[in-house]
């Protein structure tokens, strides 16, 4: 017996069935399914399914494309769904008759709804999705509080152990911390995002592993054999879903870690919005880079395992049955008070805050800022959608005016008003749902774009059921909002004038002015956005040629950490020095230098300094100044001039007095009218280590291109035994080859090394322009969206005007008006609206231009070129939008226009 032929999925069959007219439904479906089965044999099933639906839709429209002006009366006892399906079919036909209108309406709806859905997807991923744990209302988050009143800090491991041993209100207490681990696979190292957790983590939060036994209590002990739990995604991506993955090993910082579990596919860790790939026991903290609050007070140990003052873990506890959050808070606070008495050096004044875990999203403090921000964002994009709705309503009103005769004929032969309104509403709903579907696809595409970040951060935002529901609800609401008024309006034709061909006039003028106002506002808003986008674009261009204080071409740098692949601290710095020596000998390289922090890197470092003998300048807490450590080759390599004094030299060793080169800005500010060389600084406290100022260097921007000059201190890296972070080289090779040479020479020293950053210096400077460029892109996109909507709005109003004035135009033409003058008539209307909008927009942009001033580099906030550019773009788009209805008016056949009557 042959297998039953393949049939399309049931939902598709039902959809096709609803689309098709009742009379032929059964047979057409049979044929369509035949065709589907045949196509499945030679094409992917998705293609066959798509063609199935397309053919069903085509058949539904095609079968009905007969001159039907009057809907058949409803069958007696007809099911409501049948009548809705009939309305939808009729609506689809109506829309197919006007492909231009349908396309424009669908596009603007897709943009509006897509924009909303994308924003909601992000908000949902970060703020709304429930915690991926069992009984989230019985899970608590525990923060430590500081003396200074800060209430939401992380906890240290020793405190965690004491809390866990003494608590009776919690059935389990676990700790976790975000981490970056260096992973080695097939000799290639890469950075993975994960969580460092206590062994009981998965048990406490109630997430059963998909495979494997997981961690055991022994994993919490230092020196336990390295174990790891991996995410479902990691298992599929890196291990090809190998069934024997449990027991295999993955190397992390040179250590072979045995996989003891695979998390369920739905679990991405407890950091909202981020996707963790692996979980390691907290006992491996020294092998990875944990990210926590990391406050260190009165350190009492040597590692983060025994330092009670080093707080780096988030705590999650499971309430005992019957225990409340308040009881847990009181109990843990009293335990903490006892610890403060035992360990005053680290724990004095440290308290406890306990919150229900499902009431915290990112962090209690961030939540307070994020929630209103998210609400504002949703409201703002909602406004965009509302404008899109208003525009479509306008177009529908214009269309309704054109269809008033059709409606009047129907009403005259007995269609009730409700019937007509329902019919029109169905048509609008169809539009809205179509726009919603397109918009959702658009949103799915938008949120899948990779983040332009230099870190392996994957944002956990995806289209889920909640997002789909949101998009559906928004589409339905949208359909009602833009469709109701036009539907009611059009379904209430005043029979006699409409049948005679008089367009609805009368009260139109007041509505018209409201509509015009809407268009003017849209044009004004677009103007502001387009001007801002133009300013940012100009700024990006200008920043490329700005002077950064040293020649950025011919420079490349690498940032890496030998300690992450197992080097001891001192060997790490030795590795840096060896690499620099090796590079200085490489062909095409003129110099190489080491630095803890390079200009424009996001690695900001500050330190407190006191200027000796000047307590008036330093204040009680000292001056918090930007600082770096560089070796003696640094100034030559970077091409930063020394203005005064001497450079670091071989005489500066760990055993000689500490020395510093300060920049000109600092010298001028703190030693005006005298030489800074020979003056002394004190580090950290007024009686801290003495630092001699031996030189003054030329000032250059430190954090971002175009910033005002700031004091900057260079300490000597040659006076340290550990450290190192970046290696920078200068050479005569092209920038790309410099970076290649840098990589080659370092890998020749140790092929296991991996780079946190490795690029031409110019690329780094580009990165600091990221906010400006991202802003330019975002504003450009929003500006284009606003402009598109404004154009559609303008088109709607003009189209409505033209349809309302058909007879007037006909009479004008009959009396001898030429097409050009009619064209001019309509264009004049359009330009009046557009000019009003542009003027208002320019004024608004001019007065608010200061707000952009802080991000603009090398461009004045009132740059005439940007303003001019914006005006040209706006006028161009507006003219195109206006030309369509204007040409329609100019091409009117005067006889037909008059016969309308």
């Amino acid at each position, binding site marked *: 017996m*042959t297998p*039953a032929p393949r049939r399309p999925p049931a939902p598709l069959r039902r959809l096709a069935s609803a689309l098709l007219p009742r009379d032929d439904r059964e*047979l057409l479906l*049979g*044929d*369509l399914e*035949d065709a589907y089965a*045949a196509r499945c044999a030679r094409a992917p099933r998705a293609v066959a399914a798509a063609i199935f639906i397309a053919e069903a839709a085509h*058949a539904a429209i*095609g079968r009905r494309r007969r001159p039907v002006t009057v809907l058949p009366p409803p069958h007696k006892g007809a099911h409501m769904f049948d009548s809705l399906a009939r309305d939808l079919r009729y609506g689809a036909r109506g829309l197919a008759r006007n492909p231009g209108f349908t396309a424009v309406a669908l596009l603007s709806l897709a943009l509006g709804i897509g924009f909303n859905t994308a924003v909601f997807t992000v908000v949902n991923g970060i703020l709304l999705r429930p915690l991926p744990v069992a009984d989230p209302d019985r899970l608590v988050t525990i923060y430590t509080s500081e003396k200074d009143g800060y209430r939401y800090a992380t906890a240290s491991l020793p405190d965690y152990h004491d809390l866990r041993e003494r608590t009776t209100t919690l059935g389990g207490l676990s700790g976790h911390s975000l981490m970056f681990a260096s992973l080695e696979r097939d000799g290639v190292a890469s950075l993975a995002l994960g969580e460092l957790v206590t062994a009981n983590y998965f048990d406490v939060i109630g997430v059963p592993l998909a495979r494997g036994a997981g961690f055991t209590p022994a994993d919490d002990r230092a020196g336990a054999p390295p174990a790891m739990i991996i995410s479902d995604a990691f298992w599929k991506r890196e291990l090809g879903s190998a069934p024997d993955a449990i027991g295999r090993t993955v190397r992390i910082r040179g250590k072979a870690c045995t996989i003891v579990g695979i998390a369920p596919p739905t679990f991405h860790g407890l950091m909202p919005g981020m996707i963790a790939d692996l979980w390691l026991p907290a006992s491996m903290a020294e092998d990875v880079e944990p990210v926590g609050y990391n406050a260190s007070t009165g350190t009492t140990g040597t590692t983060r395992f025994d330092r009670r003052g080093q707080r780096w873990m988030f705590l999650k506890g499971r309430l005992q049955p019957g225990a409340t959050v308040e009881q847990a808070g009181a109990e843990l606070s009293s335990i903490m008070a006892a610890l403060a008495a035992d360990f005053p050096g680290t724990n004095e004044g440290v308290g406890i805050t306990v919150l229900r875990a499902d009431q915290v999203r990112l962090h209690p403090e961030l939540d307070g800022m994020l929630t209103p921000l998210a609400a504002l964002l949703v409201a703002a994009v909602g406004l965009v959608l509302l404008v899109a709705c208003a525009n479509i309503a306008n177009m529908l009103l214009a269309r309704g005016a054109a269809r008033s005769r059709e409606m009047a004929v129907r009403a005259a032969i007995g269609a009730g008003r409700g019937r007509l309104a329902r019919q029109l509403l169905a048509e609008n709903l169809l539009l809205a749902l179509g726009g919603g579907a397109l918009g959702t696809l658009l949103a799915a595409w938008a949120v899948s774009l990779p983040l332009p970040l230099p870190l392996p951060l994957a944002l956990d935002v995806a289209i889920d059921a909640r997002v789909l529901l949101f998009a559906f609800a928004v589409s339905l609401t949208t359909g009602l909002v833009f469709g109701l008024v036009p539907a009611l309006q059009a379904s209430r034709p005043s029979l006699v004038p409409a049948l005679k061909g008089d367009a609805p006039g009368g009260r139109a003028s007041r509505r018209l002015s409201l509509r015009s106002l809407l268009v003017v506002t849209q044009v004004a808003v677009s103007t502001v956005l387009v001007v801002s986008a133009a300013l940012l674009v100009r700024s990006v261009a200008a920043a490329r040629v700005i002077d950064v204080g040293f020649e950025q071409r011919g420079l490349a740098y690498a940032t890496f950490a030998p300690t992450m692949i197992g080097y001891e601290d001192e060997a790490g710095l030795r590795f840096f020095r060896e690499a620099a020596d090796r590079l200085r000998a490489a062909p095409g390289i003129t110099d190489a230098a080491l630095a803890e922090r390079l200009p424009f890197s996001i690695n900001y470092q500050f330190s407190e300094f006191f200027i000796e003998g000047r307590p008036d300048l330093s204040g009680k807490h000292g001056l918090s100044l930007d600082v770096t450590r560089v070796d003696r080759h640094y100034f030559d390599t970077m091409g930063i001039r020394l203005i005064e004094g001497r450079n670091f030299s071989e005489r500066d060793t760990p055993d000689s007095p500490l020395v510093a080169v300060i920049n000109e800005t600092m010298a001028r500010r703190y030693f005006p009218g005298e030489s800074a060389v020979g003056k002394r600084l004190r580090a950290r406290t007024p009686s801290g280590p003495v630092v001699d100022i031996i030189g003054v260097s030329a000032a250059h921007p430190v954090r971002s291109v175009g910033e005002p000059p700031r004091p900057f201190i260079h300490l000597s890296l040659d006076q340290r035994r550990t450290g190192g972070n970046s290696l920078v080289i200068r050479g005569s090779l092209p920038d790309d080859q410099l970076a290649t040479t840098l990589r080659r020479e370092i890998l020749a020293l140790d092929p296991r090394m991996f780079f946190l950053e490795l690029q031409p210096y110019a690329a780094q400077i580009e990165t600091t322009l990221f906010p400006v460029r991202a802003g330019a892109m975002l504003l450009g996109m929003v500006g284009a969206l606003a402009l598109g909507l404004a154009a559609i709005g303008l088109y709607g109003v003009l189209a409505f005007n033209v349809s309302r004035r058909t007879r007037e135009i006909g009479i004008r033409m009959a009396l001898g008006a030429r097409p050009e003058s009619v064209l001019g008539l309509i264009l004049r209307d359009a330009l009046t609206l557009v000019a009003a909008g542009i003027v208002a927009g320019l004024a608004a942009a001019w007065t608010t231009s200061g707000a952009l001033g802080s991000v603009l580099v090398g461009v004045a906030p009132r740059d005439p070129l940007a303003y001019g550019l914006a005006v040209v773009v706006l006028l161009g788009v507006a003219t195109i939008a206006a030309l369509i209805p204007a040409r329609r008016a100019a091409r009117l056949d005067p006889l037909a226009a008059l016969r309308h009557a």
Partner: protein
Amino acid sequence: MSAYLGEFEQLLLLALLRLGPGAGTAAIRDAVEAGSGRKVWLGAVFTTLERLEAKGLVRSSLIEPSGGGRRRKIYALDPAGEAALAHAYDTWTRMTRGLKPKLDSLG
């Protein structure tokens, strides 16, 4: 006297002649697509076959598939359809006789 046949109608009748009695809509469509090289909507085939049936050129019968699935219509040429096709074919051959060299010389 035969009914006038549109081009698409001719294509369907030719396909039906080729396939023999018992062909379904989907098979006819495939034959037309294969022979003419153009994409054809199933709905158009369905509608046109309905028209041809109304003109009395094809006959249809409903069959209940034994292995599940839906009822479907299968078609066969009516003698009138065969006659119309033969007539059209004769017309075509008469009208095209000796024209090939002329057509080729145009290219």
